[in-house]
């Protein structure tokens, strides 16, 4: 009965392809993978969807990104870093549902001003190659506290008053987008 033998061989091969030679080991691997994925994407790499235009042209409305919560585990945020900022419960490790995505331009203790559309740090103009859209902002000095970072979006073409920006405490910074 060669046909039956072929059929059973094919079924066996399909079975091996689907669940492996050792089903128990395959099941264990799947379980480990599920647990690792759950922990990774629930607590470490947070999937976020960008909503709004304040980070144009770097981030577009509707883009999906991953926020790395371990980005600032071994070093403090730097100028130019894009960071995710939590709305509520600063200082906790809980996963926030809503976050702000902004870029750090002012570090603790620095004074931030906007003159003729350019950001100035302690009076010196800041080189910002990521700002592509025209800007005419004029704003007086804002001094960052010892634990505060000045954050702003890349889209400076919108009116200063409508652009959510300002000083964020270190405990509000959740992490950094991966790419």
């Amino acid at each position, binding site marked *: 009965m060669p046909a039956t033998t072929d059929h059973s061989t094919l079924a066996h091969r399909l079975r091996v392809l689907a669940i492996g030679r050792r089903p128990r080991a395959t099941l264990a691997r799947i379980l480990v993978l599920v647990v690792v994925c759950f922990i990774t994407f629930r607590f470490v790499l947070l999937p976020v969807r960008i*909503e709004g235009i304040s980070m144009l042209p770097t981030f577009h*409305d509707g883009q999906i990104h991953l926020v790395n919560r371990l980005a600032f585990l071994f070093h403090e945020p730097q100028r130019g870093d894009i960071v995710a*900022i939590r*709305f*509520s*419960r600063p200082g906790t490790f*809980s996963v*926030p*549902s*809503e976050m*702000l995505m902004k870029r750090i331009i002012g570090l603790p203790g620095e004074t931030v001003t906007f003159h003729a559309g350019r950001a100035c740090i302690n009076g010196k103009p800041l080189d910002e190659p990521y700002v592509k859209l025209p800007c005419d902002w004029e704003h007086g000095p804002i001094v960052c506290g010892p634990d*505060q970072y000045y*954050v702003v979006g890349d889209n400076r073409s919108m009116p200063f*008053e*409508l652009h*959510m*920006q*300002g*000083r*964020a405490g270190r405990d*509000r910074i959740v992490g950094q987008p991966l790419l």
Partner: protein
Amino acid sequence: MKITFRLVLLAAAAGLGFWLWTVLFPSPEKVVLKKMAGLAATATFDSGDSNLTRAAKAASLAGFFATDAQIVINIPNVAIRTFSGREEIRESAMAGFVSLSSLKVQFFDTTVVVGSDQQTADVNCTANVSTGKSKDFGVQELHFQFKKMDGNWLIIRVETVKTLS
């Protein structure tokens, strides 16, 4: 075997009893969280809802607040306003509900801290509010203060929180 079965049965009965206890006598945190969920649901309405339904919702919304409650909105360059008293809150809600085509209110990341006297509670949350069919929405951090009055948890103060100073 018989003892094991009895132990399992006892544990299950204890678990059921504990669950029943939490359902019948919920903790203040749970009651306040339920109030917050109810507040969001009451403040949400669809474009298909009639003015009568909206008026009923506005009246119901006011019922979440104490008679001398205050809502302090301080969002520079957007809105700075204070609503004092349940009646003003009801009237403002009524006016807002009629003028908007639809409203969706959601509270995220809600945390409840009940005072040591078990009569007051502080609630922090992030409100996500969207109106109409447009993609426009507003996200605002809020702080609520609740007080237990005649066995009912009522909001005595709501204020906006500055996420970025």
